[in-house]
Structures are given as C-alpha cells and as structure tokens.
C-alpha cells in the first residue's frame, strides 16, 4: 500500500512509545513492503521524542545515590582492559537501520495493570507480530514462539509480577499464563547477559515444588520474551527464574534472579 499520512501518524505513535493496538497490523503490513520514508521517519522521530526528555533540566542527585549505584555493581577491574569484540552486525546499512528501528520497538516495556490488561495484551501480540515480520535474527525465533502461543488469546489468562532477587535486584518480569491451556509467556527486562555456559531457567511451582518450564536467553538489551508449554496442573501457584548450566537442569541449583509476588 502506498505511503500516506496515516502511516506517518502510526510511526509517530510508535516513536513516542504509544501502544497502537489494532493499528499495528496496518503499519506492519506497510513496513513489510519496505517503505524508506517510514524507516527514516521512525529513526528521526525517535530522536525527536528523545528531545522532549532532553529539554527537562537535570536534577541534583542526593550524594548517597552515587555511592549506592557503585556499591551495587558486581566485581570490577580497576585497570583498563581491552574492550570486548564488537557485536556482529549485518553488512547492509539499510538492513541494519531497519533492525535498529525494529529494536526500538522493543525498547518500550510492556506494562499492565488490571484495568488495561486486554489492550496491553493485544499490543504485545501485535508488537510481536510486527517483529516476526521484520527481523532476520535470533529475535525472530523468540517472536515466532510467542506468536504460536495461544496464551494471550485465552479468556482465562492470568498474570503474575516477578521481582528481581539476589544478584539481579533490578530485573523485572511478568508471567502471563492460561491455566486451561497450560501454557505461559514470560516477559522480562533488565536481565544480565550470562556467560556462554549458562542460561536462565523458568520454574513453575506446583504443590510447593519447582517444575522445570524451559530455558531462555535475553536479547542484547536484557529483555526476554519466552513461551513455555505444558505447565503442570492444577493452577500454577508461583514462578521463579534461576541461572543454570546451559540446557537446563531437572531441579534448581543456581541463584534465584526472579521470583513471583501476587499481582
């Protein structure tokens, strides 16, 4: 479909981090055809949105905030070390810009409260539909797994907030699950990258015991979308995420980084 003002309206909403709901499919279809105007507009409008924030005057931080932040870091090296190798990127600048634009869509954290659950659920589904159409990286696999899940379409979907623990107090997550479909989706943010021999493992608590619900990796921005199937019956009571050897283990051995609280 030809580029029109309406597409620019949708790009502007995306650049501001607004949920688009049903409109997302229209923009996704338009971008899938390749629209250079929209792609460059998205990048420019993102920068323009950032200007709204940059116009706010800086504040004077309390003196102990700096100390708290530095105290919360893990082990550090005082002397300079050579920087790690740069991340791989595709050769084509155009494709890289599209990936960056699509990654920008991921930067908006999915937030729910009870009253807005349906709208945000649709937004998550349509946002992941947008990703599946655009990306050619491992993020596509995550998005496709979420698409295939019927969790978000279930009428009895429930949600639990998970809070960061132990080594990752800043991590956050939500689990959406359908007791009847026995499937769930984890949406997490602020997860640290792990060494190559480790993975995050999701546990579902069933009659007080943790049951393995699958392993996953975060994206480079520390976010994860993970679909888990075959939850035990009856209703899952709680969820947790630990750090385990890559591939997962039958019972938790590693540190807990996320655990549930009642929503």
């Amino acid at each position, binding site marked *: 479909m030809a580029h029109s*003002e309406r597409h*620019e*309206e949708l790009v*502007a*909403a995306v*650049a*501001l*981090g*607004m*949920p688009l709901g049903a409109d997302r499919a229209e923009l996704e279809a338009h971008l899938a055809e390749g629209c250079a105007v929209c792609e460059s507009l998205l990048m*420019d*409008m*993102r*920068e*323009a*949105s*950032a*200007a*709204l*924030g*940059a*116009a*706010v*005057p*800086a*504040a*004077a*931080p309390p003196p102990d*905030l*700096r100390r*708290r*932040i*530095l105290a*919360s*870091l893990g*082990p*550090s*090296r*005082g002397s*300079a070390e050579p*920087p*790690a190798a740069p*991340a791989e*990127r595709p050769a084509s600048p155009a494709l*890289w810009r599209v990936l*960056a634009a699509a990654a920008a869509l991921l*930067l908006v*954290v999915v*937030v729910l*409260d009870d009253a*807005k659950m349906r709208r945000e659920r649709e937004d998550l589904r349509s946002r992941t539909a947008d990703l599946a159409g655009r990306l050619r990286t491992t993020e596509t696999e995550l998005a496709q797994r979420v698409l295939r899940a019927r969790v978000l379409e279930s009428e009895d979907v429930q949600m639990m907030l998970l809070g960061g623990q132990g080594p990752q*107090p*800043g991590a*956050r997550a939500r689990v959406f699950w359908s007791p009847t479909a026995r499937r769930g989706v984890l949406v997490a943010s*602020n997860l*640290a*990258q792990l060494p190559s021999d480790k993975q995050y493992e999701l546990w579902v608590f069933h009659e007080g015991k943790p049951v393995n619900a699958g392993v996953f990796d975060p994206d*480079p*921005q*520390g976010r994860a979308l993970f679909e888990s199937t075959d939850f035990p019956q009856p209703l899952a009571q709680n969820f947790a995420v630990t750090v385990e050897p890559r591939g997962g283990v039958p019972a938790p051995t590693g540190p807990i980084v996320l655990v549930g609280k009642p929503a």
Partner: protein
Amino acid sequence: MARVEARDADALAALYDRHGGRLLGLAQRILGAGGEAEEVVQEVFLFAWRSASAFDPARGNVLTWLMIAARSRSIDRLRARKPASRPEVRSLEEVVDPPAAPDDVEAASASRQWEGICRAAVAELPEDQRKALELAYFEGLTQQEIAERTKSPLGTVKTRVRLGLMKLRERLRPYSKGGSDGA
C-alpha cells in the same frame, strides 16, 4: 562505553557524573521527587553496567540510550501506581538545576547546551502539539487518552502528534548526530 564494557567501575562513575543528574531530572518529571525516581536511575546505571557490550554507537549516542531506558522504566512505574496516587505533573521550575562538577565543566556545558536547544525547539511548537507530545512522553498516555484529557477529537490528536514530531525533527536536524553529549 568501551571502558564501561571492560568493567571499569571508574568509567561507570564518570558516566554517572556526566548524565546522572539529567536522568534523575527526567525520572522526577515523570514520577515526582522521591525514592522511585532515584530507584529508576539506579536501575538504569546497573543496566548500563551489565549491557555495555550491547550498546552500538551507530544507533545513537549514549545519552539517548540511557534516557530511553530511564523514560520507559519511569512510565512503567507510573502506570503501576493506582490512578488515585499519580502525582500532578510538575512544572519544570520545580526541578532544581545542579552545579557543574568542577572537573567536568565541558561535558556539563555541552549537555546544558543541548538541553537549551531541545527546550527551545519544544517551546517553538504550537501549544496544542506540544501539549499532546508532553502528555504522551511524560505521562505515557495513548492517543485516545490524550483526546479525552484535552477534549479533542481522536483524529485531531493523531495529527498534532504527527506534526509535532515532524516539526521537532526539522528544528533539530542541523544539530543531529553530534549535537547531544555522548560518552
């Protein structure tokens, strides 16, 4: 950022000294003064510490990356509050300006310069466009919610958002890719 990636805590401290006040100002603008805004800043720097290897300079400068992280976490917390407890949107004058760090005057000056450029660009927008953008950015409202709050038709709000961002984009174009303070 390569030094932050190398787990040099001094580099993260320098990043904090350079941008921490700005991130706190943004979080306070959205959440109000108090512990939550400081928690957001703490989360963002912890996130930067853990994810420095993921930062790609081709996507934009460090400050924009940090501010996007701070803004999204702030809106996250704003929406998690019960509606009755959301603070009134504070005016800019209530946020205190910091003194420049004595050994970082140049960075502070460049950052304030960019602040001034952005503030002028936003102030030049027509009132209804600026209002719509601020409701979206600082309160995380949807276009429908903005229409209800401003008692305007939905289509008008969509046009204001689109035109407002396009005007900002044009106004900032001479300064882009090098105007704002990077690390």
